[in-house]
C-alpha cells in the first residue's frame, strides 16, 4: 500500500532468463515489492508456444503466494488449434484474469487475422489483453487502433506504451481514439517526461503501472510514477485504481 492505496503491478513474468538476471524467486520478488509498497503483481509466462506449459508453470508459481500474484493467460498463434481451448482452460480452471500476447515470438503483426480468435474470445468474456509493443514491425502500437473498435467489450493494453518516442505517439493516438485502449508504463527506457506525457495526452484513467518484474526490479519503475510531475489523483489511478477496475480485482 502507498498512502492507503493498493498498488497493482500490471506487467510481470514468471520464468527465468538467467543471462539478464531475470530469476523468478518469490522471496526476491516479494522483498522488492514489499520495500516499495506493491501489493499485487500480475504475472505471465511467455516462453512455451503451446500455452499450456507456460500457463501451468505460471499457475504453480502463483500458487505459492496467491494473495500477492495474479495470473494472465498466454497463447500463441503459432499453434492456432490450441489457442481457444487453452484460453478457456486458463481463465476457467486456472482463474487467470487477463491475457498476455507477445507478437515478437510470431511472424505476424498483431492486427492480422491469425490473432483475431483471441480477440473474439476476450470480447465475449470482457477481458483485457496486454501486448508487448515497440517500434518493430510485428509490435507497432498503431495496430491497436485497427482492432480496438472491432472488439469493444475487450480492453487492449499497450505494454511499454511503445517504448520509443515514435511508437509511444502511436499508442497515445490509439488511446485517444478508442476508450478500450490503455497504456502500460514499464520500460528500460526511462526517458524524462514520459509519464507526464501519457497522463496529459491520454488521461490518467488510461495509464497502468507496470514494472516487468523480475526482468527489472519494480522499484525504479515505481519511482517513475512517484517522481513524475503529475497529481496525486493521477498517481492513485495509475498505481492501482485503473488496474483494479480493468481486472475486477
Amino acid at each position: 500500500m502507498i498512502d492507503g492505496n493498493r498498488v497493482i503491478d500490471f506487467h510481470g513474468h514468471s520464468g527465468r532468463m538467467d543471462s539478464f538476471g531475470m530469476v523468478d524467486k518469490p522471496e526476491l520478488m516479494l522483498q522488492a515489492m514489499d520495500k516499495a509498497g506493491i501489493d499485487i503483481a500480475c504475472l505471465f509466462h511467455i516462453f512455451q508456444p503451446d500455452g499450456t506449459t507456460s500457463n501451468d508453470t505460471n499457475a504453480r508459481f502463483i500458487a505459492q503466494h496467491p494473495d500477492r500474484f495474479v495470473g494472465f493467460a498466454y497463447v500463441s498463434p503459432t499453434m492456432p488449434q490450441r489457442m481457444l481451448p487453452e484460453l478457456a482452460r486458463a481463465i476457467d480452471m486456472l482463474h487467470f484474469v487477463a491475457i498476455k500476447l507477445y507478437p515478437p515470438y510470431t511472424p505476424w503483426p498483431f492486427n492480422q487475422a491469425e490473432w483475431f480468435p483471441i480477440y473474439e474470445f476476450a470480447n465475449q468474456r470482457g477481458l483485457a489483453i496486454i501486448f508487448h509493443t515497440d517500434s518493430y514491425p510485428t509490435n507497432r502500437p498503431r495496430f491497436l487502433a485497427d482492432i480496438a473498435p472491432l472488439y469493444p467489450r475487450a480492453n487492449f493494453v499497450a505494454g511499454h506504451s511503445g517504448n520509443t518516442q515514435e511508437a509511444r505517439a502511436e499508442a497515445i493516438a490509439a488511446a485517444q481514439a478508442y476508450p478500450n485502449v490503455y497504456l502500460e508504463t514499464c520500460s528500460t527506457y526511462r526517458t524524462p517526461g514520459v509519464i507526464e506525457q501519457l497522463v496529459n495526452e491520454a488521461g490518467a484513467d488510461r495509464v497502468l503501472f507496470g514494472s516487468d518484474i523480475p526482468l527489472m526490479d519494480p522499484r525504479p519503475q515505481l519511482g517513475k510514477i512517484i517522481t513524475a510531475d503529475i497529481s496525486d489523483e493521477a498517481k492513485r489511478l495509475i498505481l492501482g485504481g485503473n488496474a483494479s477496475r480493468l481486472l475486477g480485482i
Partner: protein
Amino acid sequence: MTSLHFSPRVPVFDANVRVGDRRDEPSPCRNREQLLAEMDRHGVARALIYHAQTESVSPVEGNGYLAEWLGEDGRLYPQYSIMPTPDSMTQIEGLQAQGRVQSLRLYDTSPAGLPFRPWAFDELLGWLSQARIPLWISLPEATLAELMETLPGHPHLVTVLVGAHYSHFLWTRPLLRALPNTYLELSRYEPIGEVEALRDEFGAERLLYGSWFSRYAMGPMLFYLHHTSLTDHELALVCAGNLDRIMQGEGRLD
C-alpha cells in the same frame, strides 16, 4: 515506507548528468537554471555534468560548451571528455594545469575503428593513473574483452563504469572482481535485487548513484535506492560519499 511523494533523506551528488543538446536530441533543460530546477525537484544537491556534444560530435569542442553551465554556486561540477589524440590530450592537460579536472569521461572511438586496447590507450591511461584522475567509461559502448584486456594494466587508475543495463548482468561481477579500483554507476542497472546483492558481495563503496539525466529521468533510481535494505550510512555513500572520495583522487588501492 513509500509515499506518493518522495524526497531523499541523504545528501545527493549525481554522478552522471548530461547537459546541452545532442545533434539528434534536444535536451529538456535548455539552460543551467532549468537543470537546477529539475535537480531541486528531486532533491539533488550537486551533479557532475558533461556536455552532450562530447558524446555525439567532438570531445574537444563539446568540452568548451560546459563553461556556461557551471556557475559559481558549487552545485555543478565539470566532467570533461577525452580521447587519445594530440588535440584532446593537449586540451585536457591545459585544464589539468589550471586545476579544473577532477574526473574525465572516455570518448567512444570504436565507431571510428579504434578499439579500447592497450596499444591505443596505454599512454592516456598511464597519464590519468599518474595524475590520479578517475575515468568514466560508458558500458553500452564498451566490450567486455577490451575492458578486461586494457584496464588490468593500470591497477591504480580509478574507473567508473556507467550505464550498466540488465543486458550487462553477466559482466558486472567479473568486472568488479577483476578490477578492484572500478566502481559501478547505477543509472540503468535494474536486475531484480541487484543493488542489495552487489552491496552484499562488494560493499556499498563500489556503487554510485547516477541518473544519466537527460537520457533518463532523474528521480527513479534515487527513489529505488531509498527503498532498499541499504543502511543510511551505505545510502549516503552511494548517493554522494563515494563520488566525493573518488573526485578527491582517492583510489581503493591507496
